[in-house]
């Protein structure tokens, strides 16, 4: 019974292997035939580009597509690089004034009138609000305008850049077509292709796109309510600075108050007493003298403490503010670069779509074609 089993299995596998081999051979041969099949082409293309007519063999258009695609990709990278650098320089200029103004803010902060105004606001109003408003007026007075101007100039630069590149692409296409065109007396049989002029991009379109892109980012959600980017950034900058440790410590009055009070009470009492003694023959004058001396002592101690505080802490105070401003600036740069990258990608994709209506851009790569097409040309 062994032999029939062997014959049975052998024939079973032999048939399977034979069928598999035939199928595989058919697949390979058939694919080979399909790839090497080029229908006879008597037809030509009449392409109209920028008013000029070109008579082209359709198969030669395949040579243009990869070159054009590569050129488009390089121009997109160029636009990206150019805009990134412009964002850096533009925002550096926009924030420069604010960074310089921190010195003036420090000078105001460590002055006696400012100290007493803050105390008064603490007593009667809202000291925190007063401080942030003061910061806005002294440090960030023109920042929102500068930022909005920067954005407008970036949008203008980008639109000019993309429009130039778009024109260059069409010029390159014209050059390529002129290299592969047939003699003008070649009869044009069938297809007529008209390339429309490249669409000019308006900076307002870019502005809408960038605002829409940034609104989706959490920190810029306020843009949806109609606020300008500059106003949003100023508000965020103030919040950031108000959150720094140095700023918080500087704004705490009680710590200073306790120290100063101890000194003042001893000094003021002494000054008051000596004032009374000096002016003692005067009676009422003695009271006035005493009060005046106490007042002078009070202010004197405040001034001394203020100077001491300034000497110890001003540098760190201003440094913290500057660091916060720089961090805010760099964060804004990062968000803008990301947003403009999407805008650039979208705009170049539109150019690509416009071109691909007439030119077949092949997104597929078949390894077999690299051999078969080459053998067909030999």
């Amino acid at each position, binding site marked *: 019974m062994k032999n029939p089993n062997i014959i049975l299995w052998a024939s079973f596998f032999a048939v399977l292997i034979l069928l598999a081999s035939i199928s595989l051979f058919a697949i*390979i041969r058939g694919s080979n035939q399909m790839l090497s099949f080029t229908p006879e082409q008597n037809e030509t293309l009449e392409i109209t580009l920028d008013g000029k007519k070109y008579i082209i063999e359709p198969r030669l258009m395949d040579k243009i597509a990869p070159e054009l*695609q*590569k050129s488009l990709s390089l121009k997109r990278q160029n636009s990206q690089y150019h805009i990134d650098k412009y964002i850096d320089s533009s925002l550096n200029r926009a924030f420069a004034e604010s960074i310089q103004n921190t010195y003036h803010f420090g000078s105001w902060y460590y002055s006696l009138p400012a100290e007493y105004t803050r105390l008064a606001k603490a007593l009667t109003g809202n000291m925190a609000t007063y401080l942030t408003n003061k910061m806005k007026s002294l440090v960030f007075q023109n920042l929102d305008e500068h930022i909005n101007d920067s954005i407008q100039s970036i949008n203008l630069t980008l639109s000019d850049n993309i429009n130039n590149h778009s024109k260059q692409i069409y010029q390159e296409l014209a050059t390529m077509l002129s290299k592969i065109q047939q003699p003008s007396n070649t009869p044009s049989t069938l297809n007529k292709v008209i390339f429309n002029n490249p669409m000019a991009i308006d900076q307002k379109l870019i502005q809408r796109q960038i605002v829409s892109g940034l609104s989706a980012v959490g920190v810029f959600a306020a843009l949806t309510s109609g606020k300008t980017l500059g106003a949003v950034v100023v508000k965020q900058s103030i919040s950031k600075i108000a959150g720094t440790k140095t700023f918080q410590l500087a704004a705490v009055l009680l710590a200073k108050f306790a120290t100063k009070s101890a000194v003042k009470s001893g000094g003021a009492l002494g000054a008051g007493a000596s004032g009374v003694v000096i002016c003692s023959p005067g009676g009422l004058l003695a009271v006035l003298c005493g009060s005046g001396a106490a007042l002078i002592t009070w202010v004197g101690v405040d001034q001394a403490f203020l100077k001491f505080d300034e000497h110890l802490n001003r540098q760190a105070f201003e440094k913290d503010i500057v660091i916060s401003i720089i961090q805010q600036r760099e964060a804004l740069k990062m968000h803008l670069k990301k947003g403009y990258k999407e805008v650039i990608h979208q705009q170049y994709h539109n150019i690509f779509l416009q071109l691909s209506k007439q030119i077949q851009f*092949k997104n597929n*790569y078949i390894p077999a074609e690299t*051999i078969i097409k080459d053998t067909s040309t030999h």
Partner: protein
Amino acid sequence: MQNNSSRTHIVIPLFLAYLLLYGWAHYYQQLNCLVAILLMSCVLFCMANSMWESALMRRQTFLSRYLISDSPFFYWFKGGVFMLLWQVSKATFFTLFLLMEVIFWPTSLWIILLIDIIIISLCYPYYKKRIKQHVKKKYSDILIRQYLLFINSLLIVILIMPLYFFSAHKNYHAYSLISAISEEVKNIHCHCNVVESLVQLATTKEVASWWTIQSVINKINPPYLIFSLWLLFFCIICTFVWGYNRMILGTLSNPFWLLQKNQ
């Protein structure tokens, strides 16, 4: 009847292993980290099982052939924990490599592998019956799996090479290497961040290899050179086939059988 039941015993674990890989390839993005690690562990277990079995057999052959049974060398080289750990480390590497490769497999390849499992299930009992006449019972299964590993790998590579050769792939002509990689990587989003990082690495490798070969081929003229380059390229990218076979055959392996008999 015996043949049918033994075929069932073979086809079920093979099919389950296939299903495991298929599920991973199609749902890796939705899996949370715990499930992903569980899946990876299952694949790792199968791979390590297979590797340990062949390592044990080779080690036992070495011991019985070359070393005196009473010597300390025999005791030290007997295998055990260190060998197991080494096999598990190798299996970990190959598991990660295999799991990152399967996500790029086209549907036609999955169909070929499914047919391959059916063929293995049909052939396995037949080979087992044939080989028992010539080989010691203890080692017949192991030897069949060793031969199957090699033969099946070769067969699959021969089948999928034309598949890759004539099928369409992404064209990277218009991209630089960095832009091609960033274009592909930015679309990867997985529930588990560890899996996402691994997939991004695998995608980078895949894009870089296809971009490189497309750029190089573009600059070469002679067809025979182009063909040789493609052959070399496909041989390299088909190395995952060995890992795949290790994994599915690992579901049939039983290295503890070797250890018991040795004791």
